């Protein structure tokens, strides 16, 4: 076990190092793949909800949902190291695109023109967030939840 002060310093150094990096398209692609994995957990959840609570069908699909979330969890921990949480999390909005596709494919729910326009707007918003320049970020220590005060 490292003592907590050293740990805090490495934490800060890591952050500064990361702040110099820009968001790369490779990381964004990796992030989007994780979002796709995540949306499949929603599909399993919807399948589960179609069965009576704690019936065998429910347990099966709930189990699948948890398994998918397990894979997602492992991947998510790896990707949030490389992003601001607020940026990585906003990327999950693209789940609306994938959910719309799965809604049509698996549940035969209707997709309207408006749905498609909405998805395109979300895409624009996600791009705006992803094109953030990170360099200037950590020069000011904003946020008072930070425990780096000495």
């Amino acid at each position, binding site marked *: 076990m490292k003592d907590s002060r050293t740990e805090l310093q490495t934490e800060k150094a890591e952050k500064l190092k990361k702040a110099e990096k820009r968001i790369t398209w490779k990381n964004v692609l990796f992030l989007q793949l994780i979002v796709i994995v995540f949306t499949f957990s929603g599909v399993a959840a919807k399948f589960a909800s179609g069965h009576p609570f704690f019936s065998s069908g429910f347990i099966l699909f709930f189990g699948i949902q948890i398994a998918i979330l397990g894979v997602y*969890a492992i991947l998510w921990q790896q990707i949030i190291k490389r992003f601001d949480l607020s940026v990585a*999390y906003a990327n999950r909005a693209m789940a609306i695109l994938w959910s719309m596709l799965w809604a049509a494919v698996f549940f035969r729910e209707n997709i309207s023109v408006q*749905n498609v326009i909405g998805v395109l707007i*979300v895409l624009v*918003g996600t791009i705006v967030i992803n094109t953030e320049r990170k360099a200037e970020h950590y020069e000011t220590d904003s946020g008072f939840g930070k425990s780096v005060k000495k």
Partner: protein
Amino acid sequence: MKAVNLIFLLLSITVSSFSQIILKKGADREYTSFIREYLNVRVICGYGMMFLATVLTVLAYSGMEYKNAPVIESLGYAIVLVLSFFFLGEPITRRKVLGTVIILCGILVFYI
């Protein structure tokens, strides 16, 4: 959608937003091995909370169309943006706010 579904969904969003903060705190630390990146208090707590949120989500979904779920979940983007400022010191930049507003608009258009 019934009121009870909405309550489950709102609870689920709040719990999962907080779990993200804890997970990010866990992810930013250095560990001696790959397995320790996962077997530590923060990550286990974070995913425990996410599991709880999942149960709440399943309860909520039973009364609504599947494609509507991301709409209400989208409140989480604004919540995470604010929480990550307070607990992680991530700046709330103009771009983040603008992007989040555009995303919320898109989701609204999708929904209405």
